[in-house]
């Protein structure tokens, strides 16, 4: 578990990059929220969902129940494996891995990300009258696509983050590698000896 917690993948750095500019989160995301609220005549934060009553695994450090349900739903729609040789996403602790990835973040940025995740979930109320976690598969996928390909930079950035965290939470798990023939660490497995230090130049 400790090992998993320490696995902060390269693409997560990229995924989190858009959130590292605090001004983006302070102004951009809230601008999106503001527009949404205006359009909806009120922003229904955390409209109840049937998922809210589902159990949440123990051991999450940063993600709360609402975030767990959000990433569980994202895992279902972004990581389909039916009919493929890939490891079913349900067999991978994707959300636990994501929780571990958040360790690498500056605490202030992490808190802003968590706020952004709630926004992502709830903004669907404006357009679909449901939270994202309750959208049917096709609508949910289209919703994510709308964020990822948005011309509104902060919206695109958050869409980018949620997809990359979900993808990385799956692919950073070494259980997924044999199915795509990725070798992972090899030196110890192959018994390659260390050359040690180079002797002093002559």
């Amino acid at each position, binding site marked *: 578990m400790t*090992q998993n917690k*320490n*696995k*902060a*993948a*390269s*693409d*997560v*750095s*990229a995924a989190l*990059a*858009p959130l*590292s*500019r605090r001004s*983006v989160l302070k102004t951009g995301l809230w601008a999106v929220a503001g527009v949404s609220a205006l359009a909806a005549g009120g922003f229904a934060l955390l409209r109840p969902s049937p998922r809210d009553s589902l159990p949440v695994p123990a051991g999450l450090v940063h993600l709360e129940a609402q975030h767990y349900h959000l990433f569980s739903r994202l895992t279902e*729609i*972004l*990581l*389909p*494996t039916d009919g*493929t*040789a*890939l490891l079913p996403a349900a067999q991978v602790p994707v959300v636990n891995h994501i929780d571990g990835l958040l*360790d*690498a*973040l*500056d605490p202030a940025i992490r808190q802003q990300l968590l706020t952004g995740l709630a926004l992502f979930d709830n903004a669907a109320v404006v357009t679909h009258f449901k939270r994202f976690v309750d959208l049917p598969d096709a609508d949910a*996928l289209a919703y994510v*696509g709308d964020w*990822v390909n948005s011309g509104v*930079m902060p919206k*695109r*950035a958050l869409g980018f983050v949620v*997809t*990359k965290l979900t*993808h*990385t939470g799956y*692919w*950073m798990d*070494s259980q997924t*590698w044999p*199915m*795509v*023939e*990725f*070798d*992972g*660490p*090899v*030196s110890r497995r*192959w018994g*390659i000896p*260390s*050359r*040690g*230090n*180079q*002797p*002093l*130049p002559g």
Partner: protein
Amino acid sequence: MAEIIAASHGLVVTQAKDISQSSLALEADVVVIGSGAGGAVAAYELAKAGKSVIVLEAGPYVPSSEFTEDFSQAIVQLYEDKGTQTNADGDLMVLQGRCVGGSTVVNGCVAFRTPDYILDDWQKQYGLTNLTVDALEPYFARVEANLGIHVNPEHEINRNSAVLREGAKKLGISWKPFQRNIRECALTGHCLSGCATDRKQSMLVTYLPWATAHGARIYADTKVTQILAENGKATGVLAEVTDPKTGVKKADVSVKAKLVVLAAGAVQTPLLLQKSKLANSSGQVGKNFACHPSTFVVGQYEEDIHPWRGAMLGIYVDEWAHPSKGGYILEGGGAGAVELSAVTQPGLGEDFMDYMANLKKLAGIVTLIHDHNVGEISWDDDKKKIDYRVAEADYPAMKAAIASAVKLHFASGAKKVYLPTVVHAVVENPAEADAKVAAIELGLQSLRMVSYHPQGTCRMGSDAATSVCTPYGETHDVKNLFITDASLFPTSIIVNPQVTVYTLASYIADYIVQN
């Protein structure tokens, strides 16, 4: 006189765990800030010349026996800000090593000499008339010999690079095998996670153990907080030792030294000078940041490539390297599963999983451009700020580099090419390549960009009004304060910078000894 022998494995490093007192007062001829390319070389050359040397490294000491070959772990273990360092806009990752050995521990071993036309430009534009090709030749030769730099033999060109080589031949464009600083490469493909078997000739297994053999003392977990100067001369530094596991300060450190060598990297070096309020009469400290913003263009092939197997970097295309021809290069670069899941947007759901299911059939090209020095490093309250946006003047080079990479992929046999964009963009056939690349709207959050090459923030020059350092690396304002990292570069150099840093550090160390 006893023969001087470097340790066969590992380094003698004083770490936070070794320190029990709350303050340390040290003294040496030279204190070196940073243990990467610039710091390690300076430390060795000066220690060899008989100087007492102390090296202070902010990052931890991680022996190669602890390297995991899992990039998602390595980035937390070995990289600045656990791999989350970005520009202020958040659309460019700035990757630097943060450990004993610095970025040399985690780089891809690519070893270019500084291009002649770059040195010519530095002479003409910045008065660096001492840095001629002829003057630097012995220094290039020295570091190349010391670091086992050699042209990749055929077995060090992996399938990823081999297919691209065939494409380059078909297109009739110039390509070359890389030169790399590695001995007996084990072909694991894990360069960016540190070389677990010490094949890469990083500072961890070369200049640092050599420096300690000559008496240099290395302190890890020790971040310099201020450079001290009196009457226009450097006199030492103040630092803090912090437990890397808890983040709790363990000790204050002062080092009294006749000479300070600053080599903390092109982000930290100007920050430290700004904090110390030194060497900035020109107002140039932190300005002129460049970084070779790069993208990773992925092609999908019919055949199995397994881009993570073999030497990570095999060949490069230099057809458009000269600024008059575009100012960019393409590098055949392998990558692992997690990295490949991040470098493009092949679609969502089934589209993405189909892309990943074909992982072994993917090949990668890294694009590097000769960017303008338009960025700035500064403090934003108590946090660093990397203000850098790709200049509009560099948009043509960015697009040309991506367009050339797409063409190279198709010439090499790719069936489709994934663009390095944030939004969904796939080129399905050669006929639509130009239009798809032209349609990329460059600007904030448009490309998936990474920089491995920060540079330029304390540039050298003969004019004290427009540069921070003299042509010999000493700051114009503060005597006995030298800089030996990539901050010195007056312009970006197009190619991977490690050999340029080693060479300048060697040159400057010789200058120090002789003067």
